[in-house]
């Protein structure tokens, strides 16, 4: 895989070493092992953010995980500002 998002290896009993490229879903942060070449199993490419996504995110809209993190952090800052007065 070109420009893989990571790399995984298993040292199995008997000294067999199995290696895969991985990618991390840009929408939900799930790590996908590129175990086979069936595209249905490994997800796809989001044509809006142009990043690899997992199978579970294929049918959903494009909300990058970075955007989700920012929304969570904004919600937390707002909640804390109500409790601690902006700290």
């Amino acid at each position, binding site marked *: 895989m070109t420009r*893989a*998002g*990571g*790399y*995984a*290896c*298993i*040292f*199995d*009993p008997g000294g067999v070493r199995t290696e895969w490229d*991985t*990618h*991390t*879903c840009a929408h*939900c*942060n*799930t*790590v996908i*092992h590129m175990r086979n070449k069936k595209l249905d199993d490994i997800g796809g490419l989001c044509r809006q953010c142009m990043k690899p996504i997992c199978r579970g995110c294929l049918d959903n809209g494009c909300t990058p*995980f970075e955007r989700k*993190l920012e929304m*969570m*952090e904004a*919600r*937390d800052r707002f*909640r*804390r500002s109500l409790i601690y007065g902006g*700290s």
Partner: protein
Amino acid sequence: MANYSIANTTAAGAGQAQQNLTSTYKTLVAVAASTLGGATVGSQLRRGKIYDILIGTNGTPADNVLEFDVIRATIGATVTVAGSISSVSSNYLIDTADTGFVAYALINSSNEGNITAVSGEPWYEGLNQRATYRWVANPGSELVYPAVSSATGGNGLALRARSPGYTGTATRNILFQEQ
């Protein structure tokens, strides 16, 4: 951005002893943004990224299946959680010129009930008991937890293991960085 390494041992001076695995998940290492941390920088919350995971077992060799995962969970809150290492976070530095992390981290927490509200499972792997596994993320593809407190929820990542047959202990090491 400082980098840290946490293994599920007590060698660095904190955490709980390794727990025997059962058919339900046991948390080996957990790390979260939380105001319960803050050993070095007060109650400031920081985003964190796990970029390396190493797993295996250290019991009597046999052929069993083990399941390992990383869950997105709410960690911390108002209860006392066993296995906290945040007070000695500087013991887990990779570069000793950095400062300790401000995250709330746990090793072998025996209180699974305090790791609540599972909101995702971004990493999962089933392994033979005799196997070892390593995953390394390229920059930009790490497992990320947000800089939010446990009151908002989904503030951390917990690395767990279970087995229907193996009843020994499992090993785990994570490398992560704080932003």
